Every structure is written in C-alpha cells, then in structure tokens.
C-alpha cells in the first residue's frame, strides 16, 4: 500500500508540473468564435431575438444571447449564449466555471468551446432544433 501511495504521490507531482507548465496559456490558433446567426441559418433555423450583456467572466470581451426557433413560428426552442474571451486560458477557465456552476448535475444545457468563445445552448424546448444546431456547431469546429 505504501508503494501504491508513493506512485500516486509521484503522479500528483507530475500532474502538478503539467498543470503549472502553462497549459491553456496560448492565444487562439483557430481565430474567433463561429458566426452564430450564420450557423443558425445553415441549420435551417432562425434567430427570433438577440441581445448583448456584459461578459463578467475574467478575460471576457463580449457576451451575446440569441433566441432560436423555427421559421414561421414565434416559439422559442432554445437560447444560445456566446461568451467571447481574450485568450484560451480565460476561455477555458470560464468553461470550467460554466460547467460546474451547479452542485452536482448541470441544468438542461449543452456547453461548447469554439474558437475564442464558450457557447451554451440552454432553455431547450425542442430536441430536433438542438440536434440541428449541434451539427452546425460541430461542423464549425466547436467542441
């Protein structure tokens, strides 16, 4: 058991070195976030309403929200939030905070990182809409 503990401690030290070595400090290689209105259109959906608010996460540059629905309908099927950041480190830190903002299980949302942005699809009213949007986001390089 002591050997196992020693191995575990060594693993912890290695991980500490990796975590401290500057992971996530790089600027963006793949440019900015995907153009959400364009992606929405590509997915056969429409933006019913949109707006902006301050991005309060450290390193945040802008924040925008989009209410998504189907053409010819006023019904909101999802709300997409796009938070943009100065650096990948800032984006990844915000991603962690968005992902663990609740005690144990996330509310009904899907969170992506895409370019310099954290994209959150929430208040989902229709799975089909989200599937279409998901494919468009993944094709645009979201993860």
């Amino acid at each position, binding site marked *: 058991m002591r050997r196992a503990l020693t191995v575990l401690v060594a693993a912890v030290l290695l991980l500490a070195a990796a975590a401290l070595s500057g992971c996530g400090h790089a600027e963006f290689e793949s440019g900015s976030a995907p153009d959400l209105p364009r992606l929405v259109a590509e997915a056969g959906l429409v933006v019913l309403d949109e707006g902006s608010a301050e991005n309060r996460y450290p390193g945040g540059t802008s924040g925008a929200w989009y209410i998504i629905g189907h053409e010819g309908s006023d019904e909101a099927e999802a709300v997409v939030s796009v938070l943009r950041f100065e650096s990948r480190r800032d984006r990844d830190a915000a991603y962690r905070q968005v992902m663990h903002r609740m005690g*144990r299980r996330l509310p009904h949302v*899907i969170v992506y990182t895409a370019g310099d942005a954290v994209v959150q699809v929430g208040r989902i009213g229709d799975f089909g809409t989200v599937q279409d949007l998901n494919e468009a986001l993944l094709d645009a390089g*979201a993860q």
Partner: protein
Amino acid sequence: MAAGIGGTPAPGGSGAGPAGAGGAGRSIAKKATLGVFALAMIEVTAVLSIRNFPSMAEEGWSMIAWYLLGLITFFLPLSLVAGELATAWPQGGGVYAWVRQAFGERSGFIAIWSEWTENVVWFPTVLSFISATFAYVLSPALGNNSLYLVGTMLGVFWVVTIGNFFGERFSSPIATWGGIFGAILPTIVIIGLLFVSIFRGDSPAVSFSASALVPTLDMATLPFVATVVLIFAGMEMAGFHALDTRDPAKDFPKAIVLSMIGIFAMTVLGTLAIMWVVPAKELGLASGVMQALEAMLDKIGAGWLTAPMALLIAVGGVAQFSTWLIGPAKGLGVAAAQGDMPKVWRSHNKHGSPVAVLLIQGVIGSAFSLAFLLPSVNSAYWILSAITTEVIIIMYLFMFVAVIKLRYSQPDAPRPYKVPGGKAGVWIVAGIALAALIFSFVVGLFPPNVIKGIGPVAYVVILLVATFALSIGGPLLFWMLRKPGWVAPNAAAYLTGEEDAAAETAAAPPPGPAGEGGDPS
C-alpha cells in the same frame, strides 16, 4: 501514518474515538459533543448551495415549482428516511451501517463505496469553485492563473484534510461557523437585497403571472427533473456523526426538520432574489454565482459588496467541502474496520478520525484536481463526472430500499422517529424517491450531443458499464482479495462506539466471507 496502527492500548479516557487498527485495548468511549444545532448546521452546510441559485433563477417564476418538485420527490423523502434510520440505528458509518442492517455487509460496503467514490471525483469541482470565488476577493483575473488555481485547490484540500485529523474538534466548528458565515449569511444578504430592490420600487426582471409559476413539462424539459432531484443531495450527512451525537433519538429529528425548512426557504428566497433583479437572458451569460451576484449588486448599486460576498461564499465552499470530505470517509473507515478493505484503510487516530482514508482520498483527489485543470482531459473529466453522479444515485437507491426492508426484517426495532403512515407511509415516501432516482439515473445515461465519434448506444453502454464497474467493481476486487486479518479486533466498536462491543468482537472468531454477515451489531 496513523496513531491507531499498532493498536497501542491506551488508558480509558474521554476524547478517544474508535481505536486504530488492532487497537483492542484502546478506549472506545468518546465524549459525544453534537447537539441539535451542530447537526442541523452539518446538514445546512452539506446541502445549501448558493451556486445553484443563478441557474435556477434562469427558470423564472417556475423555479418555485421546480424546487417544490425536488422537495416532494427527493428532499422530503430523504429527510424523513434519514431521520428514521439515524434514530433507529445511530451507529458509526451512517449510510453504511443502515444499508448493512438491511442487506448485510456487501450491500453496506457498496453503498458507502459508491458515495465515497462519487465524492473523490466531485472534489475538484468544489475546490475549483472555492478557488475561482476567492479570487474575487483579490482580483477576479487571478482565478485564471494556473499557479494560483493549483496552489489554492491543493492548499485547501490538504489543510481541510489535515484539519479533519482532529475529528469533531475541527469538523463540527467548521460546519457550524462555515455554515453560518459561508452559507446562511450570504444567502440572507442576497435575500436582503431583494427587499432593497422592492423598497426602491424596482420592477421585477421577470414579470409575474399565475401561468409563469407553472413549469412546462414535456419531453424536452423532463431531463431538468433529474437536475432538480440532486440539488438537495446530502441530508444523510449528519448520520455519519451518530457516535458523536449527544442524544440521537431526540436530536436527529429536530435537526433534520430544522435544517430542511431552513435550507428550502433560503434556497427559494435566494433564487427569487437573483431572478427579481437580473433578467433571465443576462443570467445565461452570467450563470456562475459570482458573475450573477456581481450583476445583481451592480444593478442595486452595491457593487462594493462583491468582494466581501466572495469571501463569505468561499468560506461556505470550504465548509461544504469539509463536510463532504469527512462524512463518507468516516463511513468507509468503519467498513474497512469490518474487514471490507485491507488493514491500512482502517487506521483511525485518537480523535476517531479515519486518517488512512483521508490520506488516500487526499492523494487521489489531488491527482483528479490537477487533471481537472488540464484542458486536454476536460472532456474525459466530465464523462467521469457524469458516471459518478450515476454512482451516487446507486447509494441513494440502496438507502431508500433499506428503509422499506427494515420495516419488515426488524419491525420491532425501537424507532424513536418513524416515517409517518406505517408501512404504507414508508412505501409511499421511499417509493416516490425511488421513482425519482431511477428516472434521474436513466436521464443521466442520455448522451450529450457534443461527444464526437461515440454513438448514443455506445455511450449508454459505456456509461452503464463504467457506473457498475465503479460502484461494484471496487468492492468486488476487495472481496476477492479479502483476508481474515482485515477485520479489526474491535470491529463492532466502530459501529457502536462501545468498549464492550470491542471486547466481544476481539474474543469472537473473524466473520466468514463478506456478504454472509448480515447481522450487524
């Protein structure tokens, strides 16, 4: 490592907890120090989570109905069942002891192993939350600095771990004062700001209508039920402190009722306050508690309160972390003393603290905490997190089935507090919770859309296999390697805290293979 190893006999005296491995001669009698208030604060600290407020506030007025759903389907049943089990079997090990009473050693071990495993994987998210929140006291940008994150996460982890070596002398004040200043006080401030906003004549960010109170329940929103159910997880936490409780029969029910009402009222009002001030659309962009709070304080013109509130919430995070760190560890330490795990796991010190379990979980938790910070393993971490959420549901399933089973297998056992309504009552109460938990478990298997290269069926299979491997695989491995020497000579004392039990156990032959020992002390 632990004072308990070697079992040096010690003269009887108060303050000594369950003896260490092999410590048959050590005094088991310990001074019970916890009363109603201390127990209630353990519950409040474990369950009340301010960081849930902004996400729930996004739901608008329907959040009240969602909370009520969580109350009826899980929080109330869990409180009632924990009350009955904790008063009827006020033993060391909490959930472990209760499930063991109902289904024997193996099931008890699986239950506590499941809770402990979930905990260890969950720790990094709490530590990271504490770290990012505390950064707001100094400079929010600090929260994005790797050196600061690693330093605070590991620092808090090990300070709290070592602090818990001192048993209730550390954990009880941390829960009490941390709960008061880190959970209750900031929630009261948030609720106070609601009244400030009302007195200023601000109109609510979300307009009220009767229909807005009713949540939309359809296939798309049903998964949210699974989220709401687990918001109130943790009411079993006080049960781990049964041996430290002055009068479990009287104190547990009072503490559970007191804390349940307090937690629910503060949760609803705190969420209402944020919802009242910050528009839901903006909350989507400020869903972290500090971002939402900052938005709220700015709107009310009290931005200067951001840093003090961050300090309080970080303190609350540390207290919550400490409560979850020691509770399941105590349970696992008791299971180890019954021979479920190798000797080293059962080492307790003179304060009754399961030092070996604390050290092992410290090392594993540290590794997870560091891996959590590596972007390349982020996705893997979230899958692991999803798995462990399923694993803790397994623990709760055991607990609710146990309360039903015990009504039949031990109908005459003294129950100072009982779930009302006789057997029908317990079936209804536990049945509602079981249905909610099974639903939550199934929903947890739904594949998120973002995982590339894994089909939905493959994802479900992977998650199921991993869930059962984690919850049952670990215990199975220990049983395969099990040796008679793993049973502590004073094994029963870890459950009862009585010296006589220790002597009896020391004199008795070691029990047979695990799983057959369905006769808990």
